[in-house]
């Protein structure tokens, strides 16, 4: 495996009274696509929310290294609004687009912390090239977009911060199979350009197809992990997440 970018070390997380993550560890290597699969309520979203700083672990650490030669820092106590500046961009559950803002504003707000105006403009144009529909609808309110377009907007917005690590929470939710297929191809391209991806998916077939490695989360614990192709062959995974095929 390549050098570690993110090392989640035995984190315990509560959401209110609920003990959602009961000692989870996982690694994400530089340049990988890593999938997190599991049933509803297994703690997948909580995992992502803890990494991006929206939830704070009771104990355990999250070590992050924004490039190969940088020093590892523990980000588990850093608030969410500062974590994005370190190169971690979180595309949240349900997309979380700002429906009253225009499509253009949604993209620009992704670059909220950046000051490099010219490069923001280039970045914006590049995203409009990846998702031409966003350019066409730039002045519409984001709430008027279809589900697939909103997902593109959410991914585009996340890219506007120029992340090193892109975290996606169920990008395929509520989308038709062709749109999902296209979306994953785009994600693969983004990954090929050097962005590491950690994603949560209900659509395990898709996730295992595109990810290098995967973790299976059950009731707040990692029960299985390994290269995607091995997991896809595992009988337990097939029974539970791949519809027994």
């Amino acid at each position: 495996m390549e050098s570690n970018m993110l090392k989640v070390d035995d984190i315990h997380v509560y959401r209110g009274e609920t003990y959602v993550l009961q000692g989870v560890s996982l690694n994400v290597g530089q340049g990988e696509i890593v999938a997190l699969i599991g049933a509803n309520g297994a703690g997948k979203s909580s995992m992502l929310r803890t990494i991006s700083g929206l939830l704070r672990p009771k104990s355990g650490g999250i070590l992050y290294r924004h490039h190969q030669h940088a020093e590892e820092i523990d980000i588990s106590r850093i608030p969410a609004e500062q974590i994005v500046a370190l190169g971690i961009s979180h595309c949240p559950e349900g997309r979380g687009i700002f429906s009253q803002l225009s499509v253009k504003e949604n993209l620009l707000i992704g670059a909220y912390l950046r000051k490099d105006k010219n490069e923001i403009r280039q970045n914006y144009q590049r995203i409009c090239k990846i998702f031409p529909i966003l350019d066409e609808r730039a002045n519409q309110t984001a709430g008027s977009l279809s589900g697939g377009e909103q997902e593109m907007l959410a991914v585009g917005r996340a890219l506007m911060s120029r992340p090193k690590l892109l975290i996606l929470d169920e990008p395929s939710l509520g989308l038709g199979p062709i749109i999902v297929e296209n979306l994953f191809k785009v994600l693969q391209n983004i990954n090929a350009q050097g962005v590491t991806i950690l994603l949560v998916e209900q659509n395990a077939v898709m996730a295992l197809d595109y990810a290098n490695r995967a973790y299976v989360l059950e009731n707040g614990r990692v029960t299985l992990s390994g290269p995607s192709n091995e997991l896809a062959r595992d009988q337990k995974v097939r029974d539970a997440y791949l519809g027994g095929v």
Partner: protein
Amino acid sequence: MSGEYIAQQIVNGLILGSMYALVAIGFSMIYGIIRLINFAHGDVVMIGAFLTLGLLQVAGAPFLIVALVVLIASAIVGILIEKGAFRPMRGAPQVTGFIASLAVSIMLQNLGILVLTAQPRNFTFPDYLQKVINMGGVSFRAVDLVIMLSALTLMCALILLVNKTKLGMAMRATAENIDVARLMGININRTIMATFAMGSALAGIAGLMWGGKFGQIDPLLGFVPGLKSFVAAVIGGVGSIPGAILGGYVLGLSEVLFVGLLPPIYSAFRDAFVFSTLILILLIMPNGILGKPMEEGT
């Protein structure tokens, strides 16, 4: 009933509506961003009125300077209220914030009585603002013109700020989804603070106008504009700035017109008529005139 008379009533309604609108904007912005029904907002009007009285009549400062100082000082008052009373309540159920705002309101009123006594004080603007202007049978004082024009200017400035600046974008994003706003790198404490500052600055200026309009102020004067602007914000569609402005004018106009156009024996029931109209508006448009359906809670 002559056309001039009706025109006069409309002008009076616009003057009152301008003040309601200014207060309602802050009410609506604060609700929009943290879902807080802030009953202390009206008391910032009172603080603005007394600041004006002190600076204008006691210190004798020029009017424009007074207005500027009131604007800034009221913004600071808003920031202090947010930091002291509402930030510690962040994340608590909506009703907790509501009760905290009532507490702040009562504290400010009592502090006012303690420091300034409950005795109403006369409030007089300089002579050039008291001059009566007559235009085609409709007469108003210069101060009324100042109220209407400066309210319009401030409202336009605010709308531009909210829609065209990066801070405004952050405010709108935070109002829609605090968690996602944080993921964008928006410092929500600073954004919420800016919202309180802007809303309170407008309320403070409304206090200056209130004194100029009615000529008398006391430490409890904030209650009525606070309540009325809450109503204005609700009929306009709470959370919407244009809605708050519209609601303010609708309320101001209907108050004045009910009194002016109904036979005098009904004028004592003015508020009953006004509120019946408002209930009617809400029955037809439950989210207010310009409001969008909004989820409760935080």
